[in-house]
């Protein structure tokens, strides 16, 4: 490790927050349907959408109506994408002439993109046509992120309401989040990426004649446009098999900075927007502080692991001066840029990678896994990270309330049994999906066939896969060959649980909170903008995640770490 590496990590996090902050202020205006500079262009488009959808933009939905719309939209998106992938061979814009995708892979991929996970069982450049990439995957990259933002807006309104009956209108929140936020930032980012070297082409493969006379087939795609929304929408599904490690997706340290900042900026911005809409700016800043502290600690832990842990293979080969683990890392990024990306992508349910987590040292990979298991709230997916963090904040004030024997309040709303039941229902989905499926896969021969590495690393491949799927992350210990019926199906189910079985209780919780009267704080209220509260929140997040997952992590990354130490002594 070196000072430049630490400086790059600190600078990256600081820049991400600095970009996200004004975006959040802008997004609060979008959610509140206030005027924006883009109205001139987008107002007519927006009005056209509502007319075609046949909705009344001023009619709010109660929590059941809102949740119903979310589910209907997810179902329609799944059906369209599944059909498109299956029929790929008959559809246009298929210069490589790929066949239709197998049923289990189409199921997995469609679920993966509708749930904002973007788990890649497919190898992009060898499986999917340009049409599938653009009209299928890119569309879901936008709208699954838009759906997450819409729910964040609904949760924010729930706290602002005083005996409110509605949470807003899902179709309006979705349309405005996509048109006014995701689309403009993606266009700007895509053009910036092209300028910095990322291709954007509709040509088929190009054949180069190398200097030594061999043919090299170079796969080109409209990369930049998908890269931009893949990052902004915390989607993470790459055009290429190796995602943002591919030099055409991410050719320079500058494109890397653009991509890693856009990976987290909007999720941080969502917290700021929440604070404005809910009328709780200071409290939102406390949530943001907790996120930054935890993701920063994660990045520091991964960077330390990748640079300080001795490497058995190097020691065995007699290479004594090995300052960093570079297996699976690109020369242009090195350990620091790979570590900060790994922390930001696993803290954020993005799942894009610029290095192969499957070759990380045990604790580095373990921290990446733990960041996902903490609930994808650091800062989490766009929208979903915010509402996950609010759930944690409710649990934190609830625990604090139990300690002093008072009914807890958060942002002027009494937190009572109904809200806590919904919150617990939501947070229990993760251990159920992750540990339940992992336990079965660990003893099932058909599942074990997919593993590349043996022993604790093999268990880590399983655990990482289900953590990634249930957390809607999408990154992998890619040694796992997941494109097989068992893995495609169970990972698809884990993704659905992690997305919708989390979302619906959260919307129900928002409905319950909206219906309560808004109270003024009293002397007995725990201030939720203080350092004490930030500490309490971090404690709850770590204790909850640790209690659930530490036994499994002890059998995977932790025991492997001691094996590495033993092998290099």
């Amino acid at each position, binding site marked *: 490790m070196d000072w430049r590496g630490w400086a790059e990590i600190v*600078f990256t996090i600081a820049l991400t927050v600095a970009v996200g902050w004004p975006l959040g202020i802008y997004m609060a205006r979008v959610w509140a349907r206030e005027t924006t500079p883009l109205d001139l262009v987008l107002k007519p488009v927006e009005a056209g959408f509502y007319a*075609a*959808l*046949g909705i009344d933009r001023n009619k709010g939905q109660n929590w059941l109506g809102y949740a*119903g*719309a979310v589910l*209907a939209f997810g179902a*329609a998106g799944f059906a369209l994408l599944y059909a498109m992938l299956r029929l790929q061979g008959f559809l246009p814009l298929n210069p490589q002439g790929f066949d239709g995708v197998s049923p289990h892979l189409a199921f997995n991929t469609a679920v993966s993109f509708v749930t904002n996970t973007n788990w890649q069982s497919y190898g992009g450049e*060898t499986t999917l046509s340009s049409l599938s990439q*653009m009209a299928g995957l*890119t*569309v879901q990259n936008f709208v699954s992120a838009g759906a997450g933002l819409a729910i964040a807006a609904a949760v924010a309104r729930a706290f602002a309401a005083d005996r409110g009956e509605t949470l807003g209108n899902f179709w309006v929140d979705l*349309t405005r989040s*996509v048109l006014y936020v995701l*689309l403009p930032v*993606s*266009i700007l980012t895509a*053009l910036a990426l*092209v*300028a910095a070297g*990322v291709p954007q*082409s*509709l*040509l088929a493969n190009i054949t*180069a004649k190398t200097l*030594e006379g*061999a043919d090299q087939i*170079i796969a080109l795609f*409209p990369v930049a*446009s998908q890269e931009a929304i893949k990052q902004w929408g915390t989607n993470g599904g790459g055009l290429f098999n*190796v995602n943002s490690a*591919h*030099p*055409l997706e991410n*050719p320079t340290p500058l494109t890397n900075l653009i991509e890693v900042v856009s990976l987290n900026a909007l999720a941080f911005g969502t917290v700021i927007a929440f604070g404005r809409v809910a009328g709780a700016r200071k409290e939102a800043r406390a949530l943001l502080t907790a996120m930054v502290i935890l993701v920063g600690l994660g990045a520091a832990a991964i960077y330390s692991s990748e640079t300080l*842990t001795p*490497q*058995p*293979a*190097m020691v*065995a080969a*007699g*290479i004594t001066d090995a300052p960093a683990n*570079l*297996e*699976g*890392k*690109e*020369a*242009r*990024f*090195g350990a620091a*840029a790979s570590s900060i990306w790994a922390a930001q992508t696993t803290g954020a349910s993005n799942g894009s990678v610029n290095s*192969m987590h*499957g070759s990380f040292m045990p604790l580095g990979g373990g921290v990446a896994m733990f960041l996902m298991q903490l609930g994808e709230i650091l800062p989490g997916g766009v929208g979903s990270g915010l509402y996950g963090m609010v759930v944690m904040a409710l649990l934190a004030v609830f625990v604090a309330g139990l300690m002093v024997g008072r009914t807890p309040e958060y942002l002027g709303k009494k937190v009572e049994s109904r809200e806590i039941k919904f919150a617990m229902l939501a947070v229990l989905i993760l251990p159920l999906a992750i540990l339940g499926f992992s336990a079965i896969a660990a003893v099932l021969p058909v599942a074990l066939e997919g593993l*590349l*590495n043996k022993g604790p690393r093999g268990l880590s491949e399983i655990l990482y896969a289900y953590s990634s799927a249930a957390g809607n992350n999408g990154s992998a210990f890619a*040694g796992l060959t997941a494109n097989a019926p068992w893995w495609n199906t169970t990972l698809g189910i884990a993704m659905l649980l992690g997305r919708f079985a989390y979302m619906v209780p959260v919307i129900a919780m928002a409905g319950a909170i909206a219906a309560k009267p808004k109270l003024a704080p009293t002397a007995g209220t725990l201030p939720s903008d203080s350092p004490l509260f930030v500490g309490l929140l971090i404690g709850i997040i770590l204790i909850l995640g640790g209690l659930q997952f530490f036994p499994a992590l002890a059998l995977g990354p932790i025991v*492997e770490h001691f094996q*590495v130490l033993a092998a290099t002594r």
Partner: protein
Amino acid sequence: MIANLRPAIVSMVLFTVLLGLAYPLGVTGLAQALFPAQAGGSLIRNASGEIVGSRWIGQNFKDEAYLRPRPSAAGKDGYDAAGSSGSNLGPLNEDLAARIKTDAEALRAESPAPIPVDAVTTSGSGLDPHVSPANAARQVPRIAAARKVPAAEVQAVIAANTEGSTFGLLGEPRVNVLAVNLALDARWPRAQR
């Protein structure tokens, strides 16, 4: 639920047209007009106009007279630009240990200099266009001997194609392998070797 049917279906159709077609095609048009070289994949052509590669895609140079890239896990022979892949081997994997041992022995047969980590590790993509400056410097005597030219001049060609950390802050110092080899061939054309 029935009330949601129309907006769900209609919105998916509209979003597909706007985000799946208009957005990527619009960005493609703008990108091709504003930055045609980058948008087309940063391809490099030789004097007769043939494409010899992309600036960003590594090639599997084996010749002694060329700067060699890092090991690659992409495709059977490495550097398969249509099938990117890392090795995904964990730190205790026996295959990884065996591969690094073999590679290290081959490198030691060439030179007693210390072996830089990137010379025996595969990249994430298997298409890494760069090597570290230490890795390049270690290869200078071999390249100079194969081309029968002074080592200092080879080192100068490498130095001219070396980039530092961007803004002194981002990423690692690196040498573009294809750019170096094109420059070497331009300086000392193959026929004269």
